[in-house]
């Protein structure tokens, strides 16, 4: 039967059907749902790792131990895992080993839009690129086969539009999760093969030619790989495309001949030459980098490509059509008349949720006019109004190192590094060790909401919540970790006590005798067991429209229609549906005009 599945759901199903026994991931948009879905299947272990490198390392270990293994991550996560990725390319696999890289053209939820097909070329391993959910499922299965056949890690690369779009997938019964797969057989003893598994220089020197020979074999295989196919049509134009771009090219350049590269690296050189010989003009339609275009040009084939098709951003039908039109290809631009009466739609800027435990820390950072080295998570929203508080954000865990460097450069401004619990365990630990080791008075504010919030609430070492319900997880106490790393000045404060948060940060910044850490602790509203308190109210007699409460950036605080007689400014109003009763606004109101009733009914 056919079911609508997202690309990520299809990847999970494909991996399960391929008999994956171990899967690990660090959550990151648009890759998160792959492991979330895998965790619901039986006969496999699915885990959240503390970061992407650890996820890949664990998958490598499982592969060497003899089972099929998979690591999934967002494109920038592959940067974190790249050290091991480059080594495992030499080492090879035992059980099939698949890396899923979910790229984000258009930077919907990322710090860049790097094209991870480049990693396949750089690291010398194959890359498969599905164009819809059916292919996502099929290609993952093929990836495991290729991995074992060619003794190599295989990358499956998706993009946001593949991972997060739903399309029809042929699904076989039995339903996932039922234990209809054969019981696992005990694994043989780990085979000792240091000449392959221990990548010392002498072994690496011997393995590099093996990798080059493997690439040679993969190039030959690509010529007959069933994932590459030609859809013959009008020979005036021959389109070479793949991934999400295939769907756009097929629609805009309908009727022309098309070569779809399902295996995006290595490319089938002979197949491409033959195809190009049979068409009058070759057009390469690919998202982001001219990855194929450069390689095809190197074959001596003139192509139309990035001179017209955008190098940046996500493809849309209108962008591809506009580019094809500009390139002089026979397509008609859609007659979209400009709007005669455009409406000025006010933006909906992302905001911290009502009840978010990060609010008081940013209110405080702004009030104290601190230099803030930020990090990656929901709390990056601290850069936006009304906080305007974050000065830098580079990559996972970078806050502490950046604050360290600013200080070491000789900057004496009051500064803090702000990092979430999941990000702290991801890449903050080694950065904090560096600051302690070098005895630099950096203040690190750890926003501990006991979850990985931005990606929808996944477990992490700070929460101890495992990816699979049936397994156990252990929570690691952040204060103990920080103390044992050698930080002597530590304060733990309740995230919803505005004065305590402000005071702790003030004292930490003033502390100049070594590193200091403030742990701001409070549950994310998405956490299990989280409870709403009584919603707060505004005493309209007392409110004079001073607008200070708007500085906490809460979507539940509105401007009412009532103006203060003196100030002529609108008084505050609380949205009863949104308010969680966290009382941050109650605490910042200088006139005690916002209050929390004892019970829900007055």
């Amino acid at each position, binding site marked *: 039967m056919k079911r609508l599945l997202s690309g990520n759901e299809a990847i999970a199903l494909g991996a399960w059907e391929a008999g994956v026994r171990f899967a690990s991931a660090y959550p990151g948009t648009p890759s998160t749902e792959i492991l979330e879905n895998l965790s619901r299947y039986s006969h496999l272990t699915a885990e959240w790792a503390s970061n992407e490198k650890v996820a890949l390392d664990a998958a490598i270990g499982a592969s060497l131990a003899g089972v099929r293994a998979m690591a999934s991550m967002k494109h920038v996560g592959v940067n974190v895992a790249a050290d091991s990725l480059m080594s495992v390319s030499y080492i090879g696999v035992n059980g099939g080993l698949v890396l899923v890289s979910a790229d984000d053209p258009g930077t919907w939820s990322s710090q860049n839009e790097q094209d991870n097909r480049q990693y396949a070329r750089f690291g010398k391993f194959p890359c498969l690129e599905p164009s819809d959910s059916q292919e996502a499922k099929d290609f993952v299965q093929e990836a495991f086969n290729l991995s074992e056949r060619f003794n190599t890690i295989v990358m499956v690369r998706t993009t946001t539009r593949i991972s997060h779009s739903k399309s029809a997938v042929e699904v076989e019964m039995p339903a996932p999760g039922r234990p209809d797969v054969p019981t696992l057989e005990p694994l043989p003893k780990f085979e000792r093969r240091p000449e392959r598994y221990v990548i010392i220089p002498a072994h690496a020197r011997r393995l590099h030619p093996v990798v080059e020979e493997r690439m040679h074999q993969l190039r030959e295989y690509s010529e007959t790989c069933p994932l590459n196919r030609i859809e013959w049509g009008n020979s005036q134009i021959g389109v070479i495309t793949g991934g999400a771009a295939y769907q756009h090219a097929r629609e805009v350049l309908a009727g022309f001949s098309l070569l779809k590269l399902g295996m995006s690296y290595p490319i089938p050189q002979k197949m491409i030459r033959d195809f190009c010989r049979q068409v009058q003009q070759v057009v390469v339609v690919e998202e982001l980098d001219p990855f194929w275009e450069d390689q095809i040009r190197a074959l001596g084939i003139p192509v139309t490509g990035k001179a017209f098709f955008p190098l940046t951003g996500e493809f849309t039908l209108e962008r591809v059509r506009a580019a094809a039109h500009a390139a002089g290809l026979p397509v008609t631009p859609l007659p979209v008349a400009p709007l005669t009466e455009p409406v000025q*739609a006010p933006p909906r800027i992302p905001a911290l949720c009502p009840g978010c435990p990060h609010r008081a820390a940013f209110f405080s950072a702004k009030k104290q006019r601190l230099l803030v080295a930020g990090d990656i998570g929901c709390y990056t929203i601290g850069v936006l109004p009304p906080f305007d508080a974050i000065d830098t954000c580079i990559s996972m865990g970078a806050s502490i190192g950046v604050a360290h460097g600013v200080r070491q450069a000789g900057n004496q401004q009051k500064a803090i590094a702000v990092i979430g619990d999941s990000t702290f365990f991801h890449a903050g630990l080694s950065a904090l060790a560096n600051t302690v080791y070098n005895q630099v008075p950096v203040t690190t504010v750890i926003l501990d909401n006991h979850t990985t919030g931005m990606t*929808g609430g996944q477990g992490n070492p700070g929460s101890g919540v495992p990816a699979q319900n049936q397994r156990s997880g252990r929570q690691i106490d952040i204060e103990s970790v920080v103390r044992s790393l050698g930080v002597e000045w530590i304060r733990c404060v309740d995230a919803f006590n505005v004065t305590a948060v402000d005071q702790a940060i003030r004292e930490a910044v003033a502390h100049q005798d070594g590193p200091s850490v403030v742990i701001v602790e409070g549950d994310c509203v998405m956490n299990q067991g989280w409870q709403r308190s009584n919603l707060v109210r505004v005493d309209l007699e007392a409110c004079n429209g001073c607008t200070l409460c708007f500085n906490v950036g809460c979507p539940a605080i*509105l401007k009412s229609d009532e103006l203060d007689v003196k100030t002529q400014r609108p008084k505050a109003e609380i949205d009863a549906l949104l308010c969680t009763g966290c009382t941050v606004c109650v605490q910042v109101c200088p006139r005690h005009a916002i209050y929390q009733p004892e019970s829900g009914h007055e």
Partner: protein
Amino acid sequence: MNDTNFLFVGVGGQGILTASDIVAEVGLAAGLDAKKSEIHGFSQRGGVVESHVRWGQRVGAPVAELGTVDFLVSFELLESARFVEHLRPNAVVITNTQRIIPMSVSSGGYAYPADGDIEKALRSRTDQIYRIDALAVAQELGNPRLVNTVVLGALSWHVPVDAAVWLDVISRRVPPRHLNANRQAFDTGRSS
């Protein structure tokens, strides 16, 4: 049926993704190919939600081309105007009249557009504008979370697929104890 493009818009938390899921499944159930696409992540926190559904014999890109949307289903009044450019001339617009005030208005310098301006923007593309106070209907039926189903009912009246197919898909997605309420919500939306 010809290729059909739907665009569902509104604000995070309004049940837009479920509604668009259902419409994609109705397409499959009606024997067509269907795709659906939306954006998760950073843009979701308090932001605009935009979910595309396409039906056809063989659907290509999961997102419709600018100016080719046949049905704009807006769960919030202002959002209908934000997406006018996506409409094909004479498209059908179904808009919930609920207003959700953006923070740029509640605490910033922006103004919520006047009804007349929203109307004018929509009319520059189409006269087929259908308003429904789905929240009021849902509350009358006893559960504000039925907004979703009320809006789907209103949409279904314009789409040549049997109501039975819609109800069948909806019944597969809601817990049995909410089934009757959802049927009622769908019917009320359909006849409004």
